[in-house]
């Protein structure tokens, strides 16, 4: 580790009297020159990964939002990404299904593979990619159409159903797996926007799994939900990992601890530490990680 051990004034103050230098390091967050040289602590790589990012840098115009991040997402695992606001969690997540392509000023450098294939290769089709890597957004965003149509839309444009019966089947099983079917089975023709926030988010999950993706990306899926709705989504994530690979951004440490097998901690565009969730939360190796999970800042 070639990092210079300096802590910001604020943190120094708050950590007063505590033995801080036993941790590997902290650094001057203003200086990107330092950050460039930083290497992620922990286990960013896994054997037999589903998706891998290597030396990913993301720029919004002049501004760099992601600095040299390398990270694997294992098959059928739930990877949680945590970190303070604005550290680039969403940005990184959106590179995984090229959702950043719709932002004109956004530029992604580095290599990201899905089953070993580079998804940024010019002959890679974003339509195909997004069918394989689905996404659930922070704010529930059902289409202003019927519940049925919300779920059926993806399969329809990809031509996954060859008959109405088959489509009905897909819609029902998707809603079932999202734990929503029993609640809405009598009102499939009602607008999806009329559901409660939690139901809407489960509808969005149903919509994402209706196209049978391999990976599901979730960007703070519970941040707009009440605790009960959150608990339901968390249960759901736990069930979904049997069949899917999931990357979830969350601002709730408890949530990360509950649903994920591995956790990645981001700070100012840098991937600071990755490891088994249990280890990260019980024995963080980096000062910044510890500060964050113990609630000292973020």
């Amino acid at each position: 580790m070639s990092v210079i051990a300096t802590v910001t004034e604020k943190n120094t103050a708050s950590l007063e009297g505590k033995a801080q230098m036993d941790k590997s390091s902290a650094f001057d967050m203003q200086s990107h020159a330092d950050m460039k040289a930083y290497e992620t602590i922990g286990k960013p790589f896994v054997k037999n990964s589903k998706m891998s990012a290597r030396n990913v840098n993301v720029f919004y115009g002049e501004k760099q939002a992601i600095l040299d991040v390398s990270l694997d997402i294992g098959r059928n695992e739930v990877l949680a990404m945590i970190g303070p606001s604005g550290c680039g969690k969403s940005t990184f997540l959106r590179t995984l299904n090229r959702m950043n392509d719709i932002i004109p000023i956004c530029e992604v450098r580095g290599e990201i593979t899905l089953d070993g294939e580079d998804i940024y290769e010019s002959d890679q089709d974003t339509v195909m990619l997004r069918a394989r890597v689905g996404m659930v957004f922070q704010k529930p965003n059902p289409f202003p159409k019927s519940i049925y149509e919300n779920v059926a839309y993806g399969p329809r444009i990809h031509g996954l159903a060859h008959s109405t019966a088959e489509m009905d089947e897909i819609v029902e099983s998707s809603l079932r797996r999202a734990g929503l079917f029993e609640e809405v089975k009598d009102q499939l023709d009602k607008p999806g926007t009329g559901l409660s926030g939690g139901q809407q988010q489960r509808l969005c999950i149903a919509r994402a799994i209706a196209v049978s993706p391999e990976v599901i990306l979730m960007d703070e899926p519970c941040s707009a939900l009440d605790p009960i709705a959150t608990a339901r989504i968390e249960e759901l994530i736990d069930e979904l990992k049997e069949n899917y690979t999931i990357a979830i951004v969350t601002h709730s440490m408890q949530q990360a601890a509950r649903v994920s097998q591995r956790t990645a901690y981001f700070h100012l565009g840098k991937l600071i530490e990755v490891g088994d969730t249990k280890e990260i939360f019980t024995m963080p190796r980096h000062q910044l990680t510890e500060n964050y999970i113990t609630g000292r800042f973020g």
Partner: protein
Amino acid sequence: MNSMNESSRSSTTIAIQASLKKRYARERRFQWYGRIAVLTGFVFLFILLADIVVKGTPAFTQHFIKLDIDFNAQEMGVGQTPSTGELAAADYSAVVKSSLREMFPDAKGRSEKKALYRLISIRAEYTLRDMVLENPALIGTRAEVWLLAHSEAGSYLKGQVDPATPESDRRVKDMQIAWLDTLAQAGRTESRFNTTFFLSGDSREPELAGIKAALYGSFYTLLVTFCLAFPIGVMAAIYLEEFAPRNRLTDLIEININNLAAVPSIVFGLLGLAVFINFFELPRSAPLVGGIVLSLMTLPTIIITSRAAIQAVSPSIHEAALGVGASKLQTVFHHVLPVAMPGVLTGSIIGMAQALGETAPLLMIGMVAFIMDVPAGVTDPSTVLPVQIYLWADSPERGFTEKTSAAIMVLMAFLILMNGLAVYLRKRFELK
């Protein structure tokens, strides 16, 4: 610490109370300014509407006069058993005139007789001809027939002429008034709904003039306008909003579209004259050219409102659609456009309403012609409703004054209808 807090709080309270009264007074004053402004607007609108309605309403009725017509073959200049051709060419005005002379023998001399004949519209000849052609057995018989009154006689019967004014100041003379009074007392006059107004084209005679030709002209013109401006406008808006890169060129295009919306409409007329008529040699006075010119004028409105409507669609809908793997085109047509549609339609209808009321550019391309026949297509010479209003307002005959106001009423009815449609569509789409 505590007492300091309390004293500062009470001083704040006092300060607020002192200013409170002033603030409320200011608010009330402001509300009154608003009310007065709104009221002024309403008063002017009301005066305008009342004036138009009062002037225009009489145009929706027409007076008829009952005459005893002697279908005298000799007088009509036909034989005892005339052929259809002969009947069609017969002199029907002669029998009308003789009927009038018979009823009012007091009309002596040329000018008095002429005044007498002026009680009945020239339409009477055609009415009688149609009757006879349908039933030739009428020849040689006598029948009571309701004939359309001349517009001047009609205006007296509608009470628009004050007999107390000096005779030289009015077109309906004393003798005519006396005759009309006699007819009215004998129950030989009748007011009917004016179907002519809706079923005829323009005419030199006010009682025969109608708006049908102008209505059809407006319809064809707007049809052309809509077919061009709506698809082009909406497509342009979609392209600019969703697909075009943001750069100098698109900025320039945007600025120019906004500028185009502010170009005086007569300029579009000049353009139409120079390009479509002189260069492309499209027919003059035709709805085709009128529609093209008006669509140029409406395009900026449609593009600007459509862009605003598309822009207002939440970006989360984009993300949702792209997130399940929809292409950009699918995203736009399946999700963005349906949500933006109420705004797009509202903008388009308002643009069309503007086009419906537009006159200046159409004058430039010759749609100001005197059109009696209803146009049968987009290349026939025609006029449009506002131009018809302009033409009638310009006519010296008194009978056209009420037509002008009546045509304005019809035009406004259509405008209200279109705006109502815009509101309805917006409500309907919003419910979904």
